[in-house]
C-alpha cells in the first residue's frame, strides 16, 4: 500500500541534510557552550553562527534579537506573559488577538485574563482572515500587545501581517506574530513587516522537535519566563540545546533556499487536490483559497465525522489530521472552524491534509482516488447523511 504523510502542519520529518548537520553536536561537540574549554567553544560557535544566520533569514537587525526556546508554545507563552508582565506597571492591561489563534496563545490569554488583563478576540470572518481595521479599532490607551498569527495552523489562511504591523507601529503598540506555520513558506522580514516579536519552531520545517525561537526586537522590555543561568543574555535560562539550535538554523536555511520552487510546486498540487475534492457533493473548502499556505488543504464533507474519516485514511496509508494535533482526543469541535462560522455538526467533520516537499503529484492522484471512496462508504452508514438526503428529496418534491 502507498504510504503518504500528509500531516506536515502537525510535525515534519527531520530532513536528512538537517540531521547530518546536527550529528556532530549529538556526538563529538557535546560541550557546554557556556564553558571555557575547546569542545565548549565549538558548541558556542555553532550556537552563535546559527543565531546570526537565523537573524539574517528573518530580516532581523541584530543576531542578539534571536532567543532560542524549546518550541512554539514556549515562545508564544513567553511573548505574551513576558510583555504583559513587563508593561503592567505602566498601566497596560489590554491584549488584542484573534479568535482562531493556536491554543498556546488563546490559553495564555485566558491565564492572563485570570490575572486581570483584558483580551479582545477579533473576528476572523468566513474566509479566516483578520481585518486590519478591526485591529486598529480595537486598540486602546492601555493596549500592551497585539498578537495575530502569521498563518493559521488548521485552515492555512495567511494574515495581512504587514498591514497589522503598520497599524501597531502607528499606535505604538507591540506586535507579536506566531509564525510557527508560515516560517519557511512565506518571506518574513521582521523589520519591513514591523514585527516586534515572532515565534517559530523547528519541527514544522523539517527540523528537530524541542527547539524554537522568539525574536524580540531590541529595546523591548520583557520579563523572563524561565529564570536561571546567564544563557541567552540572561533572558532564557537552561543549557542550550545545541543540536536542536543547529537543526533549527539548518532547517530554516533550507526552507529559505528552496522557498520559491517548493511553494510553486506545492501550490499547484494543493489547487489540483482542492478542485478534485470539491467535486464531491456537499463538500467545502475551509478558509480563503488564495491567501493560504501552499501545502494546506482543509475540507469538510457533510454527513461524516472527522475522526472516522482520518482512521479510514490511515487504513489506506494516508496520515492526515482533523485540525491541530494537540487537541485530537478532545470532544470539542475545532475552535478554528467554529470561528469561521461553521455549525457544530460540520465542524466535526473536517479533514486537514498538509503537504511538504516530500509529497508528489502521485500522492495527490492517490488521495483523489481514495477520499471519494471513503466519503461514500462512511456516508452510506451515516444516519445524518440519510437525513440530508431525505430532506433533499422532500425539497425536490416540493418544487
Amino acid at each position: 500500500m502507498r504510504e503518504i504523510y500528509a500531516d506536515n502542519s502537525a510535525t515534519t520529518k527531520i530532513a536528512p541534510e538537517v540531521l547530518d548537520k546536527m550529528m556532530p553536536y549529538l556526538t563529538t561537540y557535546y560541550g557546554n557552550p557556556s564553558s571555557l574549554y575547546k569542545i565548549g567553544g565549538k558548541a558556542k560557535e555553532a550556537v552563535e553562527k546559527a543565531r546570526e544566520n537565523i537573524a539574517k533569514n528573518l530580516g532581523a537587525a541584530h543576531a542578539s534579537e534571536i532567543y532560542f526556546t524549546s518550541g512554539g508554545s514556549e515562545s508564544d507563552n513567553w511573548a505574551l506573559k513576558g510583555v504583559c508582565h513587563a508593561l503592567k506597571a505602566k498601566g497596560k492591561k489590554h491584549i488584542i488577538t484573534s479568535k482562531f489563534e493556536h491554543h498556546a496563545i488563546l490559553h495564555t490569554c485566558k491565564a492572563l485574563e485570570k490575572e486581570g488583563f483584558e483580551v479582545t478576540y477579533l473576528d476572523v470572518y468566513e474566509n479566516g482572515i483578520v481585518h486590519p481595521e478591526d485591529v486598529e479599532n480595537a486598540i486602546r490607551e492601555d493596549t500592551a500587545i497585539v498578537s495575530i498569527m502569521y498563518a493559521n495552523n488548521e485552515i492555512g489562511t495567511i494574515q495581512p501581517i504587514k498591514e497589522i504591523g503598520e497599524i501597531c507601529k502607528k499606535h505604538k503598540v507591540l506586535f507579536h506574530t506566531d509564525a510557527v506555520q508560515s516560517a519557511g513558506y512565506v518571506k518574513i522580514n521582521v523589520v519591513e513587516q514591523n514585527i516586534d516579536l515572532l515565534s517559530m519552531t523547528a519541527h514544522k520545517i523539517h527540523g528537530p522537535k524541542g527547539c524554537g525561537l522568539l525574536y524580540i526586537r531590541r529595546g523591548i522590555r520583557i520579563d523572563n519566563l524561565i529564570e536561571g543561568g546567564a544563557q541567552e543574555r540572561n533572558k532564557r535560562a537552561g543549557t542550550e540545546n545545541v543540536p536542536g539550535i543547529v537543526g533549527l538554523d539548518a532547517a530554516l536555511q533550507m526552507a529559505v533556499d528552496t522557498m520559491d520552487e517548493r511553494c510553486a510546486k506545492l501550490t499547484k498540487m494543493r489547487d489540483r487536490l482542492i478542485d478534485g475534492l470539491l467535486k464531491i457533493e456537499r463538500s467545502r473548502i475551509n478558509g480563503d483559497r488564495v491567501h493560504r499556505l501552499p501545502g494546506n488543504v482543509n475540507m469538510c464533507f457533510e454527513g461524516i465525522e472527522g475522526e472516522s474519516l482520518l482512521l479510514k485514511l490511515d487504513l489506506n496509508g494516508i496520515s492526515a489530521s482533523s485540525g491541530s494535533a494537540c487537541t485530537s482526543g478532545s470532544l470539542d469541535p475545532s475552535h478554528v472552524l467554529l470561528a469561521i462560522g461553521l455549525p457544530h455538526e460540520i465542524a466535526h467533520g473536517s479533514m486537514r491534509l498538509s503537504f511538504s516537499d516530500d509529497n508528489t503529484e502521485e500522492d495527490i492522484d492517490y488521495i483523489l482516488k481514495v477520499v471519494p471512496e471513503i466519503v461514500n462508504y462512511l456516508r452510506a452508514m451515516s444516519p445524518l447523511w440519510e437525513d440530508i438526503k431525505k430532506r433533499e428529496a422532500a425539497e425536490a418534491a416540493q418544487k
Partner: protein
Amino acid sequence: MAYSEKVMDHFANPRNVGEIENADGIGEVGNSKCGDIMKMYIKVDNDIITDVKFKTFGCGAAIATSSMATELIKGKPIEEALKLTNKAVMEALDGLPPVKVHCSVLAEQAIKAAVSDYYKKKGIDPEPIVGTVPECTSCSCG
C-alpha cells in the same frame, strides 16, 4: 488515540451495518452537535432479537461500539439485550480510551431506544420494562 486491535477490527469491518426494511424497532440516540449519532434497527421474533442493523455518524469508537453492540445482542432474548451495559461493550472491545467511553454509553442507549420503540409499536408502555433512556450526559457540548 490508541484504539485496541478489536476496536480497529470493528471499525474497519463493522458487522451489521445498514437498515432493516420493516424493522420492528428503531432507536436513534446522540446528536450531531455532539459529533455522534447512532441509529439501531431490530427485528424481533418471539421476544428474540433475530436481526439487528445500525447506522452511525461518529468517530471510530462510535462505529466500533455500534458494531460490537449489535453482535452482542443478535439472536438474544430482549431481556438479555436490555441487560447489556456499556461496560460489557467496552470489555468486549478490549477497552476504550477514557475520552471515548461515552460512545459505549451511546451504544447501550441505542439498543434501549430500539427496544422501547418496539414496545411502543406493539402498544406496550416501554417505561416499566426499559426504563427511561437518558440523554447522553458524557457529552458536554451544546
